[in-house]
């Protein structure tokens, strides 16, 4: 991506040139207590103080106390403390207020439900207060504007390691926080996966009771879904996207911090559910079964309600940032493909997550308030639940897939040193996926009897969506074709992703067919299919992305040897686990059961061995990340020789990202394409034209 020399020493826009000339006039007006408001006699209440913001003098509002105000005293410790205290306090109150012996319609005692739910509310409220999430709204209400010094404090300037444990607004800090939180969630879900495979591998005995096994299954499912949604959008989306588009930060830095800490709150709600009966109904928690499950279900519902807010807020932030903060000259044609992927995922998250959130709100209401949205005996409908759920449930998988696929397309030009095979087809693929994702949801409901006549239109739309997904794979393969590959760890992840995505995609087409789904629905074949897509493509793509951006995010090079061993070990284990699972599914093994016929034993033994190999591989990869982060080789600013903007910043990246905002004049993938600003090239070109003209004459 060619960056033309900016026209000013500080800012690159005419607006800023004009502003900087009149900045002092504004400051003088502010000092006189008005800024164009003489007829009202009012002013902005300026303090008279002026700060230099990126070289421009900017009038400041009054500074209330030290920069940062109340947030100087709030951090993760205060949040945990207040969250715990309020959880206990609310729980205690609920206990006192609940009538002794109260039961619900199924004669289950109500006290545990109320106490647990009250505890969750207390935890959410207390943690939010303790971390400082309400500081922004209260400040706004009271008219206490942030000064530049406040903003710098909030961004973590001069706070060192402590900024990672506070309500820090710098997108780079939020990105690292997301990376850690996502890795913790993945580890938690992965541990549960090992327990599942242990149960299914030990075919001669029961390791867990059915209810414990069911809760492990359900919790594993939702934990991994959440982890996969966050693993690319969170760390890479937050850390890299603003730099990739030439911005200094996200559009709304405080909303960025809010989305991260809401995710942390939701994660704790999910983990807590394991201790009160767990989530025993799969990750989709269908009604009416879920209404009869232990109080752990409330933990799941609270997790989703909060996580939906977190994702919604993050989506708003990403959408506005990408739409309105791209650098001068970064037209849509010059915007990196990863930005498109994140943008598409954010749009889907924006419109679809509220359906999921409301499905859980209504389910919670059925449990606690005795409503009957999903209780057939009282006029409710379980199909309503399934429709509301899958209206998000399917776009959600593309929220997972698009960013990881887009990362793959982002890496490929760098490591094949050639432009993306067809940027336009890649865009068409992303747009097609976003457009069609909202029209396929009922392919999860073929066997529910909801609307048999609707099965075939949904079959058609589901098969159609394979086309834009296929575009993305074809663009990847086309980019590889005749490229000079530089085989590094991120490229290996690309190979893994493409291989897995092809298998997952093709098996998805089988499942999209109603007659095939009649047999395959609810079998291990389905489980293998979505693991190939979400883990095989999603997780391996995320690993490639993390490996690629690791130098920029941490200032260290990732240990490629250990990382490669981890990646390929996990890949080999993955094929064994889920390849065998396809066989088990074809043989007829149902999903979510711990007892099955001996016919399926061999497949399950192989899957379990494979799962432990995955675990080993992931541990090696995680170990590589941690050891490299602590003591890896220091990374240069642009170890991959990439042309995109994020690699033009120094490492470590300064707080403001760019000292001078860049101006973009070419596409980001023109590797091997002559630089139009190269002086020698221009001179050669002129000479050639003269020669051609002479010959013509």
């Amino acid at each position, binding site marked *: 991506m060619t960056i033309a020399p900016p026209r000013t020493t500080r800012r690159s826009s005419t*607006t800023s040139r004009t*502003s900087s000339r*009149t*900045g002092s006039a*504004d400051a003088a007006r*502010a000092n006189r207590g008005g*800024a*164009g*408001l003489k*007829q*009202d006699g*009012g*002013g902005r*209440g300026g303090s008279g103080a002026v*700060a230099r*913001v*990126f070289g*421009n003098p*900017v*009038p400041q509002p009054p500074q209330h106390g030290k920069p940062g105000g109340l947030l100087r005293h709030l951090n993760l410790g205060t949040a945990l403390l207040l969250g715990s205290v309020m959880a206990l306090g609310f729980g205690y109150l609920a206990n006192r207020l609940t009538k002794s012996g109260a039961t619900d319609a199924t004669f289950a005692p109500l006290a545990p439900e109320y106490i647990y739910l009250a505890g969750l509310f207390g935890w959410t409220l207390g943690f939010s207060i303790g971390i400082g999430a309400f500081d922004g709204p209260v400040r*706004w*209400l009271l*008219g206490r*504007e*942030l000064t*530049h010094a406040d903003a710098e404090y909030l961004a973590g300037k001069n706070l060192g390691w402590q900024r990672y444990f506070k309500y820090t607004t710098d997108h780079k800090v939020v990105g690292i926080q997301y990376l850690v939180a996502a890795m913790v969630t993945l580890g938690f879900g992965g541990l549960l996966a090992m327990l599942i495979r242990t149960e299914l591998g030990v075919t001669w005995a029961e390791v867990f009771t059915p209810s414990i096994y069911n809760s492990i299954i359900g919790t594993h499912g939702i934990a991994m879904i959440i982890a996969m949604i966050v693993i690319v959008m969170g760390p890479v989306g937050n850390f890299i996207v603003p730099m990739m588009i030439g911005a*200094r930060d996200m559009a*709304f830095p405080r909303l960025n911090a809010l989305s991260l800490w809401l995710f942390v709150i939701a994660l704790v709600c999910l983990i807590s559910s394991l201790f009160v009966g767990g989530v025993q109904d799969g990750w989709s928690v269908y009604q009416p079964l879920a209404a009869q499950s232990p109080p752990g279900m409330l933990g799941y519902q609270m997790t989703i309600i909060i996580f939906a807010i977190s994702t*919604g807020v993050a989506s*708003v*932030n990403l*959408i*506005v940032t990408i*739409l*309105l*903060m791209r650098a001068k000259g970064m037209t849509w044609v010059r915007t990196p493909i990863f930005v498109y992927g994140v943008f598409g995922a954010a749009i889907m998250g*924006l*419109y*679809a*997550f*509220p*359906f999921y959130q*409301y499905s859980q709100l*209504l389910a919670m*209401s*059925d449990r606690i*308030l*005795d*409503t*009957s*949205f999903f209780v*057939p*005996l*009282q*006029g*409710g*409908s379980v*199909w309503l639940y399934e*429709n*509301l759920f899958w209206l998000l449930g399917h776009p959600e998988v593309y929220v997972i897939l698009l960013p990881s696929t887009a990362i793959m397309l982002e890496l490929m030009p760098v490591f094949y040193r050639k432009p993306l095979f067809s940027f336009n087809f890649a865009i068409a693929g992303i747009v097609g996926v976003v457009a069609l994702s909202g029209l396929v949801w009922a392919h999860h409901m073929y066997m529910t009897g909801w609307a048999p006549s609707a099965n075939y239109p949904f079959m058609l739309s589901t098969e159609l969506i394979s086309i834009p997904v296929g575009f993305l794979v074809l663009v990847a393969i086309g980019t590889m074709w005749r490229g000079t590959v530089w085989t590094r760890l991120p490229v290996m992840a690309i190979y893994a992703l493409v291989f897995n995505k092809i298998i997952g995609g093709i098996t998805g087409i089988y499942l999209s067919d109603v007659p095939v789904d009649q047999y395959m629905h609810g079998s291990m074949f389905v489980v293998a299919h979505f693991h190939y897509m979400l883990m095989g493509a999603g997780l391996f793509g995320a690993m490639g992305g993390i490996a690629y951006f690791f130098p920029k995010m941490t200032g260290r090079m990732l240990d490629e040897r250990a990382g490669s061993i981890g990646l390929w070990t996990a890949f080999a284990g993955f094929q064994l686990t889920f390849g065998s699972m396809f066989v088990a599914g074809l043989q007829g093994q149902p999903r979510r059961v711990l007892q099955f016929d001996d016919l399926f034993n061999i497949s399950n033994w192989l899957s379990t061995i494979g799962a432990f190999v995955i675990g080993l591989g992931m541990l090696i990869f995680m170990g590589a990340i941690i050891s490299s982060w602590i003591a890896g080789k220091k990374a240069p600013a642009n170890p991959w020789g990439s042309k995109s903007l994020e690699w033009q910043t120094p490492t470590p990246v300064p707080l403001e990202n760019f000292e001078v905002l860049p101006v973009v004049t070419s596409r980001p993938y023109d590797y091997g394409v002559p630089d139009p600003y190269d002086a020698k090239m221009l001179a050669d070109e002129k000479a050639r034209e003269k020669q051609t003209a002479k010959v013509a004459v």
Partner: protein
Amino acid sequence: MARATTESKMPLSPTTGEPMSTIARRSIGALWAFIVMDVSGTLALIISYSYLWALNVNDAWAPPGAKLDAAQTDETLPKASDVTFAPEWPFWAIFAGVVVATIFMWFAYKRLVAGHKGEAIAAATFSLLLSGALLVAQVVQIISFEFKTSQGAYASAVYALTASNVVHLTLVCFLLIGIVNRTHMGLINPVVAYQARMMSIWMTWISIAFLLGAVCTTLMLESPNTDPAVFGTFNVS
């Protein structure tokens, strides 16, 4: 040149140094995104209401007293239940109040932009007070419903829609307090008026949400499915 002149009068954001017009564009963009989210959520409730109304599962859509039953109409027999559909006029009255509050907020914004700060504050304050009154009215309506949450799908859906109204009105009241206070302090002024504009847009969406709720709860009462499938009935013979 004219644009540069206008932007040269535009105050700069104290945190980023950018013109406030840039901040305004981003904020209004974010507002539209939030409205999309809220539309989805509201649609989820509207879909729930409509779907359950259309299905009338187990003939349990309507509250017990609303079902036409010969025994109900025979005056010599005790009524099986008086619990019937909620009166319609409060839904429309509250909707009308929200519309009036929205109109006053727009008026406040327009007067502010024209430079009449006093009128703007007065109009916004009226909008705030009216919104507060509507919030109280909405809570009173919920408390006075004759049906309980467990008395049919209609009851559940109405409680959900009106609860959503309470949440919306609470947020509106909070934001209006901020708008009034900040206008009074001069932080929202004729040059930097985007937050008042945002509030007006938001309240317009809220009015639409209230309208959708009122349409459902008044025009979609009796289920069109008068011969519903009955699930889960067990005969002990």
